[in-house]
């Protein structure tokens, strides 16, 4: 993108967005592997500014005001179905004093927005929301200053409302009129006051999501719906699962099948292209008759936990807290918890559209990270990054790193070979199940010592896991890259450092324990293909820790809620626990055989949102059913921008976690995955969702945003386990814990 000349700037009118080349710099290869999921992207250039403003301080990177007074807001984050589009507009519109309907949001696009790395780790509100809110406050101030200069009044005398600046005597100037005289290509100033929470119109209120109406009425809402002139459909041909490949595929036969107008072939990468989808689906089935072979050493299809423990690992202590003990612990309790591989299981298999015009490549993708994806694909197809543009368009919920990046690469390679024709590449259900990176299998071993008063005196937590991040940092991280001739090598996986963590996310207990050791056994040599699944290691670590807390509470003969409170100093943690227990009616609930209540709590990453969950669960062993009668959660996400959005995310997290924890587990044999569709990888259906779910928000206006997308899954898992233990007398430590 070139810098506009001053004449062009004025001629265009309004306020123009453009980026300095500095702000546009691509992260170095491998940088996506360092640091946490959401903090990828360039290094801060203005560390004093909040959120992503520290990396992109120029206001016009975030906001542009048109001559008609409408504002376009830019974010480097993506809408994943978590409601971020609406929440960011609420922030901007409120801080700008514009009606919501006068704002539009442009989301992650390497051609138009800043590089805020990956939309992950529940960072969107923290990074982008903070930046946008502060940028908006800055822009509002600039508009007021411009009006003050014109009217020769003091800034303090002026107010803003509904897209206009108002003078005490009633004179007004619209933002549109003012914008003509203003350049927003200035850096944000530190210390510009945000709106007083008592004056908010939009922030903190339930706001209907701006993306829902189109989704309810058949609008073009997903990349799957994108239709471009001359577009061709495509399907990729691979072995049945990751870790397999076809032997002796008869490409000539494929090319002759009806509806196949082209076969794209690069090394072992094979895609078929045609004008209509159904013939391609049928051709895929014909291709399915080809023999396949494994491409790896046999996977441990037996005792997975033993295999994890024996695999070569980096043993990384992440906590070593020691204090002298007056007396040795009165009781020592140990327990071991396991989790199988879990699928993202996006309802819509991954999809991408790519168009190569001979020089430039444009890709529409639902990847969570369009910038790193752009760089990886550019390297894959050997184009300079500036000739590759990657635009985020929604897919179905991804819950982490699913097939989105790989299918984008498949589309790109195919598009390069069919210049001038947009290519819509769609994975089949079986391909999504077979090839998506999974949530890692994990093992946790806990040991704690209780003092004679029933307090935890000693604690050790060991977690074994394969990686939680294989997001594309280079072309060898894309499946297509491994199929080229010669194949490109994947980036060696690295642990995500604390305080975010990968397999060790939330492995450090928030509880006050004088002696505590936590070791992360990072297993780089994954068996099955793995990457980030929503909450990463937190689901497993909190399942273990919070199940264990109940086991300790029982040994200490304390009520589980009181036991937790007695070990916490964080007042916000104590408050969500108190609130959830109160709303649930914990103190008056009576367990009985076959039906009991379970409780759990976590602060996501020990830095993010606080969430406590209580569940009333019935186990009918004879009918083979587990019924969640009622789930009650309390959540503190800091400053709640859209409370309904928060409730939506936590309700969803509870149900999603009941499925993960209760019934899921990827099936595989030594050669390939045998979970290939919904019949072989069932997830929770309506008959088994809770009877009722309530979410109560502890709102902290003015406090930092803490994100909500990953806060509910981990405590829900343990609440279920604790309820089942109290209902049946059986402590189930190996997920899935409620299979029929």
């Amino acid at each position, binding site marked *: 993108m070139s810098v506009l000349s001053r004449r062009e700037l004025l001629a265009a009118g309004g306020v123009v967005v453009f980026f300095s080349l500095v702000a546009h710099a691509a992260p170095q290869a491998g940088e996506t592997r360092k640091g946490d999921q959401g903090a990828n992207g360039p290094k801060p250039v203005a560390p004093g500014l909040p959120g992503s403003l520290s990396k992109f301080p120029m206001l016009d990177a975030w906001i542009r005001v048109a001559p008609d007074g409408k504002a376009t807001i830019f974010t480097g984050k993506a809408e994943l179905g978590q409601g971020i589009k609406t929440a960011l507009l609420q922030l901007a519109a409120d801080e700008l004093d514009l009606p919501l309907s006068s704002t539009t949001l442009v989301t992650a696009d390497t051609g138009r927005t800043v590089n805020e790395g990956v939309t992950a780790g529940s960072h969107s509100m923290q990074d982008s929301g903070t930046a946008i809110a502060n940028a908006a406050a800055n822009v509002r101030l600039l508009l007021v200053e411009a009006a003050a200069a014109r009217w020769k009044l003091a800034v303090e005398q002026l107010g803003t409302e509904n897209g206009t600046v108002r003078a005490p005597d009633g004179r007004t100037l619209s933002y549109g009129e003012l914008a003509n005289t203003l350049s927003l290509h200035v850096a944000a100033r530190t210390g510009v006051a945000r709106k007083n929470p008592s004056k908010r119109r939009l922030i903190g209120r339930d706001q209907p999501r701006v993306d829902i109406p189109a989704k309810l009425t058949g609008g073009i809402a997903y990349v799957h719906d994108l239709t471009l002139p001359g577009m061709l459909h495509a399907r990729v041909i691979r072995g049945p699962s990751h870790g397999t490949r076809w032997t002796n595929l008869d490409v000539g036969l494929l090319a002759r099948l009806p509806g196949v107008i082209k076969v794209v072939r690069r090394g072992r990468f094979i895609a078929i292209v045609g004008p209509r989808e159904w013939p391609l689906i049928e051709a895929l089935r014909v291709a399915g008759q080809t023999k396949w072979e494994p491409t790896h050493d046999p996977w441990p299809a037996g005792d997975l936990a033993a295999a994890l423990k024996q695999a070569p690992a980096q043993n990384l202590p992440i906590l070593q807290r020691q204090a002298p003990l007056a007396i040795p612990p009165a009781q020592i309790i140990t327990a071991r918890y396991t989790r199988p591989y879990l699928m993202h299981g996006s*309802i819509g298999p991954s999809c991408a559209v790519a168009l190569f015009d001979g020089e430039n490549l444009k890709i529409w993708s639902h990847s969570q990270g369009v910038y790193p994806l752009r760089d990886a694909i550019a390297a894959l197809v050997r184009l300079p990054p500036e000739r590759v543009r990657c635009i985020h368009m929604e897919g179905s*919920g991804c819950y982490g790193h699913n097939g989105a990046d790989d299918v984008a690469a498949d589309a790109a390679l195919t598009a390069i070979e069919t210049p001038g024709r947009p290519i819509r590449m769609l994975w089949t259900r079986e391909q999504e199940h077979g090839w998506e990176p999974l949530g890692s299998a994990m093992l946790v071993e806990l040991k704690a010592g209780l003092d004679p008063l029933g307090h935890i005196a000693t604690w050790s937590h060991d977690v074994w896991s394969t990686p939680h991040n294989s997001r594309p940092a280079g072309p060898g991280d894309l499946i297509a890259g491994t199929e080229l001739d010669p194949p490109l090598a994947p980036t060696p996986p690295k642990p995500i450092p604390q305080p975010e963590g990968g397999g060790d996310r939330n492995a450090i207990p928030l509880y006050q324990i004088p002696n505590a050791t936590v070791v992360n056994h990072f297993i780089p040599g994954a068996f099955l293909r793995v990457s980030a699944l929503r909450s990463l290691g937190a689901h497993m670590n909190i399942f273990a820790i919070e199940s264990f807390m109940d086991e300790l509470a029982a040994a200490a003969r304390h009520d589980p809620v009181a036991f937790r409170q007695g070990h916490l100093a964080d007042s916000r943690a104590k408050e969500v626990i108190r609130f959830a227990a109160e709303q649930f009616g914990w103190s008056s609930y009576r367990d009985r055989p076959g039906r009991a209540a379970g409780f759990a709590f976590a602060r996501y990453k020990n830095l993010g949102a606080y969430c406590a969950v209580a569940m009333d669960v019935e186990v009918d062993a004879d009918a083979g059913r587990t019924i969640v009668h009622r789930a009650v959660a309390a959540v503190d996400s800091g400053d709640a921008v859209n409370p309904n959005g928060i409730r939506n995310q936590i309700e969803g997290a509870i149900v999603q976690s009941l499925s993960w924890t209760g019934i899921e587990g990827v099936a595989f044999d030594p050669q390939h995955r045998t979970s290939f569709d919904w019949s072989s990888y069932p997830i929770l*259906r309506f008959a088994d969702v809770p009877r009722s779910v309530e979410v109560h928000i502890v709102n902290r206006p003015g406090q930092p945003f803490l994100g909500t997308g990953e806060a509910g899954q981990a405590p829900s898992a343990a609440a279920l386990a604790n309820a089942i233990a109290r209902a049946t007398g059986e402590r189930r430590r190996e997920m899935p814990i409620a299979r029929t």
Partner: protein
Amino acid sequence: MIEIEVNGAVRRLNVDPTTPLLYVLRGDLGLHAAKFGCGLGQCGACTVLLDDEPIFSCITPIAAVQARKVTTVEGLGTIEHPGAVQQAFADEQAAQCGYCIPGMMIRAEALLRRTNRPTEAEVRGALQPSLCRCGTHMRILRAVRRAARARGGGVPDPAEPVK
């Protein structure tokens, strides 16, 4: 040449009669609400009404659709004039990623055409063939209960009290 009736309009198409209805709706008729989720009749993202019954359009060949009425979400209402079911889903904000929701709305519509006083068990049973991965189930149930009330009835034994 195949003639089918979709959302009240007769459409003539020159397509292979074995083609499942889903690809005709999305590819030939520009109706994108019904979604591809599996192509196997397992997830319900493709659900549309055939006469008044919910069916998986991904496994319904177009040859079976002639002489019967197809209704998609686009036939239930528009952004400007949403139908009762769509309005109920909007009022409950019953969507996260939203991908499964068209199928859910079709199943709700089919249920409410049969009765505007379904029991809680009937509502859950009607939605059972459709999968949601985001965990929006509670809101979907609230939306269906709300839609039942909007149609002059209501769920007599709701699992959650009406707000």
